């Protein structure tokens, strides 16, 4: 987990150094979606979770 947090920190520094602030909303959104997908996709729990919606 600490490895992934350090990657997020490095990504932030990447946006700052290369002045690519316009990428920030896209990346934040995509990472949030990624988290949802990782937690649900391919898991046996998915049919239970999706049935809630």
């Amino acid at each position, binding site marked *: 987990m600490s*490895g992934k947090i350090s*990657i997020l920190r490095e990504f932030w520094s990447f946006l700052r150094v290369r002045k690519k602030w316009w990428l920030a909303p896209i990346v934040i959104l995509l990472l949030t979606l990624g988290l949802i997908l990782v937690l649900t996709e*391919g898991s*046996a729990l998915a049919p239970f979770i999706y049935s809630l919606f």
Partner: protein
Amino acid sequence: MNILGISAFYHDSAACLVRDGEIIAAAQEERFSRKKHDAGFPGKAVDYCLREAGLADAAQLDLVAFYEKPFLKFERLLSTYLACAPRGLPTFLKAMPVWMKEKIWLKADIREELRFEGPFIFPEHHESHAASAFFPSPFERAAVLTIDGVGEWTTTSVGRGEGNEVELLEELHFPHSLGLLYSAFTYYLGFRVNSGEYKVMGLAPYGEPRFRDLILSELIDLKPDGSFRLNLRYFDFMAGLRMTNRAFDKLLGGPPRKPEAELTQRHVDLSRSVQAVTEEVMLRMARHAHQLTGERHLCLAGGVALNCVGNGRILREGPFEKIWIQPAPGDAGGALGAALLGWHHYHEKPRQIRGERDAQGGSFLGPSYDAATFLEQHTIPHTAMNDDELPSRVAELLEQGKVIGWFQGRMEFGPRALGNRSILGDPRRLDMQQKLNLKIKFREGFRPFAPAILEERVSDCFELKNTSPYMLLVAPVKETLRLNGEGEEPSDMITRLKQRRSTLPAITHVDYSARVQTVSAVTNPSFYGLLTAFEQRTGCPVLVNTSFNVRGEPPVCTPEDAYRCFMKTEMDYLVVGNCLVDKAAASRSGAFPIADAKKPVIWKSPLLDEELDCSVPALRRFAFTIGTVLVLLGSFMLWGHRTAGWPLLSLAFLLLIISILVPASLRFVYRPWMMLALLLGSIASRVLLTLAFFVVITPIGLLQRFCGKRALEFGFKSSETNYWQRRTAGPSDYEKQF
């Protein structure tokens, strides 16, 4: 100091181990996993490299080097979507889940896979290519040219190497890529991108370059110094799942050829035309590299350096005295380049030149196996011979027209078989090419075969002034060996193919060219010995040498792979080490059933492109997960005085019992349940990503364009004299992923 280089997650993943500047081991993952162009984490290749170096585990490594910078690649990808939006949704839906789940986290994942806590570096993609081209070369100083599809942003780079430094000077950037132009035609001609390019190159000599001028006027703006831009109006690789679009079809007079459909003269002419343009670009770039650096020698890498016809023209018509091409010029070689950058640049260690020979050691950097033990263990009938008997007996068999599987020593690193995992034949026989293509390799009949020749005899048979140890140079067959047919050249491809064009018909292509491998006594004594024996018997110092595999499979790695491939094809004899196996005797014995190796318990869904792990631990995990949910639900219901809770608890108990006693039977529930889970996940992922694309990416992209900002450079600039972009920064910060 031990440095591990890794290339992975695009295509052709590989690992390489460099110790104190010396290349100890390098191998592609596909050889171990048996999945052609395997792009996954090269775990098996890493294990092999550690074993070869005598390291117990990756914790003993001093440095790990990944061959490119993932954040810059991600930036390029997002910039492309912004530039194309609202087009581009299909590729977005395909690429983003992989990036979000895997690629963005690869540093942490590789650390976890390796259990490595030490320093980790990320050179740029083209820095890795340039390092793989220059550092192992025999030159103290040289110009360096790397050309491929695309790395992070760079598609082509020109640089200079001197001593322990390699520096990139100028670049061309995505989407303007020679590799992608060639791949677009590969796609259009009905072959697979990233693997069918050889076929386009092999097909080209049958055709006429009648589309060359059209390509140069419409598809590409080529400047005199080799820099260029593509006309993006005709290509779909940025926004779509296809390489070319309808405008391309209209321009070239028809839709793309369907895979396996008949090859017509138009297809052949298209191959010849794109090949001619590619050669022209390569030549101009080489001349520019010479002008820019003033060097006498050139080092080449990147996927386009596999275009051995273009390489041959650079050598014959270009300004350089000698050229050296990395034998694994594609992405696999990036692992080697990254590791060498770790030694020479990151640790600033000097580089030693070993006279005339390069540091690649013939590219025999893969694993070796005890062949005799394998044959004995599996009671495969064979004849063991000594070092003198074997070459003369095999030469005798080759002279009789037999086809030999030749398995020796360490496996080659790179796509070419160089005499350790090879299929060999007599090049003087007219029928050898067809026999090898159709009965042994099971591939298209038009594809040519390469000659391996004794290094010191090369000028007797080919117009070649360089050695070509890695089969990456195409050269004309000597005039003295050619047999010029009378009358007009037949128009039919197969008739042309069957014509005897030289005294070495099996390796002479229809344009009298051949992809030459020069064999040295220093780097490959056993193959050299066989060629010598064949020459003594026949006066011919040449053998047909093709990789030991069949169509669709990677070249063999182990004796088991070799024996399996041998028994599946019409090869006559197999030589494993010093043992000769006769197909007839082996078939009679029935030893070692040739069924495919035991595969892991994986089930591939017929509906979704997903694989399921159906192993017992996976089934038990499934039972535990579902059981836990059922217990929670059941308890909740009982707590609320609902009797329906009891059946749920009973079902959970039943699952537990089955998972202990007969776990395999759970797969009948597991498969449909998981398919439902994957299907729901896939739908949810698409819905969410589509929303993200249209609600966030498209407005930002449109706003950027409205403000006059473009993330990518499009369009031809007739006022400019060249398109090269000077590299202002020095080497990248290796520790950063950007």
